C-alpha cells in the first residue's frame, strides 16, 4: 500500500448513516452484515427523496420539462457509473435490478445465443448461487459441460489448474472478483488473459469487489462485469451489467417491450441501440439516480482509501478472532488477499445459535451458507458465521464482536 493513500475519517462518515444510530434490544447496533447489503448515507436517501419529490416524471417518453429533467439526471447517473468502473462509454453500462439479473442476462442472452452442445464453461468452486445456478440451468438445457477451478487449502483459486481446464471447447469463463464467503480477492487480469487466449469470453461477478476497491473494467479487459447497487450504498432494485460494445451489440435482447425497440410494425421489429436494448420497460430510474449519488460518495472518499480502511479492519478482525479459543477462520488469513468479509466457525456452537446470541448484544452478523451451498459442501460445513465490514466499520465494533462471542461461549458453556 502506498502511504499517499488518504485514510477514512470513519467518525465523520458514520454521521451520514442514520441507521447506524439505531439501537437493537436496547443496545447500540453493531452492523456487521454489509456484504449482504450496505447501509445508506443521507446523500443517497435525499437523492431518492428529491427525485420523487421534485420534477418527477417517467424518462424518455415525455417532451415536457419534468420528463427531460429526469431523463437528464438518469443519463448523468449512467455517466457517473461509467467513470466509476472505468467503462469506455455509457452505452456499456446496462441498468438491471441487481447482479443476479445481470448474470442471468448474460446466461440467457449471450449464453443461449452463442453457446451450444459440447461447449464448456469454466467457473469456480466458490461462486455465489447467482453466478452458479444460471450456468447450471444453461448447461442442462444445452448439453454444455461445466468445469470448476478448484480451491487451494488456503481458499484461493488454484490457478495452477487453469491451463488444463482451458481447452478450446471453453467458450466462457466466470468467477467472483471477491468471494462473499471466503473473502478471497482474485486478481482477474491473469485469468482473463488466459481465458481470452483460448477465445473464451469472461464474466466477472463484481458484487463484492465494486463496493470495496478500485475497479477498472477496461484495464481488466473482461467482457462482462456484474454488480449490485444495494451493496455499495445504493438503493435496492438497481444493479449494473457492464459489457463490451461488440458483445452487447451481437447479443439479442433479454426481455422485450417498451423502450428497447427502435421501431415496431405489425410484422417486424428492430431493436434499440445498446444499452437501452437490454432495458425493456420503465427502468428503476429513481434508484439509478440514487446509485449515482452513492457512486459520488464513494468516489469522493477514494476507492483506494476504502480498500485501505477495510484491509485494516479485516486485519484487526483476523488478529482478534485468532485469539478466541475454538474459533476457525474460513478462507485466507492474509489481509492482502482478503476483502472485508470474515467467515468463521466457533467450535461446538452452531452458527445460527451464535447469530441469535450475538443479536442479543446488538451485533448483527450473518449465519448460514451465504448462498454458496456447493462451496459449503466442499468445505464440509453446513453453515458458517460471517462478519463483514464497510467504510463505516470501526475497530471498536470488532471488539464488540469478540466480546459478544465470548459471552455466547459462556452462555452455552463452551
Amino acid at each position, binding site marked *: 500500500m502506498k502511504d499517499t493513500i488518504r485514510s477514512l475519517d470513519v467518525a465523520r462518515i458514520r454521521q451520514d448513516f442514520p441507521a447506524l444510530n439505531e439501537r437493537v*434490544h436496547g443496545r447500540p447496533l453493531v452492523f456487521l452484515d454489509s456484504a449482504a447489503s450496505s447501509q445508506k448515507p443521507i446523500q443517497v436517501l435525499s437523492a431518492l427523496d428529491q427525485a420523487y419529490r421534485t420534477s418527477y416524471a417517467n424518462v424518455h417518453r415525455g417532451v415536457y420539462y419534468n420528463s427531460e429533467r429526469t431523463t437528464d439526471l438518469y443519463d448523468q447517473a449512467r455517466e457517473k457509473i461509467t467513470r466509476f468502473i472505468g467503462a469506455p462509454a455509457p452505452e456499456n453500462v446496462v441498468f438491471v435490478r441487481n447482479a443476479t439479473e445481470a448474470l442471468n442476462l448474460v446466461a440467457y442472452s449471450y449464453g443461449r445465443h452463442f453457446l451450444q452442445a459440447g461447449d464448456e464453461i469454466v467457473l469456480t468452486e466458490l461462486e455465489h448461487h447467482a453466478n452458479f445456478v444460471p450456468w447450471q440451468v444453461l448447461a442442462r438445457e444445452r448439453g454444455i459441460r461445466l468445469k470448476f477451478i478448484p480451491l487451494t487449502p488456503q481458499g484461493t483459486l488454484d490457478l495452477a489448474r487453469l491451463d488444463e481446464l482451458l481447452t478450446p471447447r471453453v467458450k466462457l469463463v466466470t468467477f467472483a472478483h471477491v468471494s462473499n464467503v471466503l473473502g478471497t480477492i482474485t486478481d482477474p487480469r491473469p485469468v482473463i488473459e488466459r481465458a481470452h487466449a483460448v477465445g473464451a469470453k469472461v464474466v466477472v461477478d463484481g458484487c463484492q469487489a465494486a463496493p470495496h476497491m478500485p475497479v477498472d473494467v477496461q484495464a481488466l479487459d473482461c467482457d462482462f462485469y456484474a454488480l449490485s447497487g444495494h451493496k455499495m450504498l445504493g438503493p435496492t432494485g438497481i444493479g449494473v451489467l457492464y459489457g463490451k460494445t461488440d458483445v452487447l451489440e451481437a447479443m439479442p435482447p433479454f426481455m422485450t417491450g417498451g423502450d428497447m425497440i427502435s421501431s415496431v410494425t405489425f410484422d417486424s421489429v428492430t431493436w434499440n441501440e445498446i444499452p437501452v436494448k437490454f432495458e425493456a420497460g420503465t427502468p428503476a430510474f429513481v434508484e439509478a439516480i440514487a446509485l449515482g449519488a452513492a457512486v459520488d460518495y464513494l468516489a469522493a472518499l477514494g476507492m483506494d482509501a476504502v480498500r485501505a480502511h477495510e484491509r485494516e479492519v479485516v486485519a484487526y478482525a483476523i488478529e482478534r478472532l485468532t485469539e478466541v479459543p475454538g474459533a476457525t477462520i474460513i478462507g485466507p488469513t492474509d489481509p492482502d488477499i482478503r476483502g472485508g468479509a470474515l467467515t468463521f466457525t466457533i467450535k461446538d456452537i*452452531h*452458527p*445460527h*445459535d451464535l447469530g*441469535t*446470541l450475538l*443479536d*442479543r448484544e446488538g451485533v448483527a452478523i450473518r*449465519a*448460514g*451458507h451465504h448462498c454458496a*451451498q456447493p462451496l459449503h459442501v466442499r468445505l464440509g*460445513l*453446513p*453453515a458458517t458465521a460471517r462478519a463483514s465490514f464497510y467504510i463505516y466499520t470501526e475497530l471498536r465494533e470488532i471488539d464488540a464482536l469478540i466480546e459478544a462471542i465470548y459471552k455466547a461461549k459462556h*452462555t*452455552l*458453556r463452551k
Partner: protein
Amino acid sequence: MEDLYRENLLDHYENPRHHGTLEHADISHEESNPLCGDRIRIDVKLSEDGSRIAEIAFSGDGCIISQASASMLMDEVDCKPIGEVQKLERQDVLDMVGAPLTAARVKCAMLGLKVLKAGLYQYLVDHQK
C-alpha cells in the same frame, strides 16, 4: 428473547431425552433443513393395535434450537395416541420452547415436529387398506 438459551433449553440440548435410534421401528423418518444443515431422524414403535406411540427416539445434529426442541417433543409425545400427536401444531412447539423466536429460528424449532408428522403420515398412507 432474553431467556431463550436458558437452563431448560440448554439442558435438553446437553442431555437430550429419548436420544438414539430404535431397532425394528415401525416408523423411521429423517429430514434436514438445507439452509442451516439441521438434521433430525425420528424412530417410532407403535403399540400393538397401532393406536399409540409405544417408544420413540430421535437423533441428528444441528443448532441448539432444533435439537432441544426435538428432545422436548419426544417427552411430549411419548406414549400418546397417534390422533393426539397428529393434532400438534406450531404453537405447541413454540410453547415448549417457551421463549420468543425470530422467523428464521422458528424453522429450526419446527424440524422435529415436521419429521414426526411426515413419518406418521407416510405410515398411515402405507397401512391403509
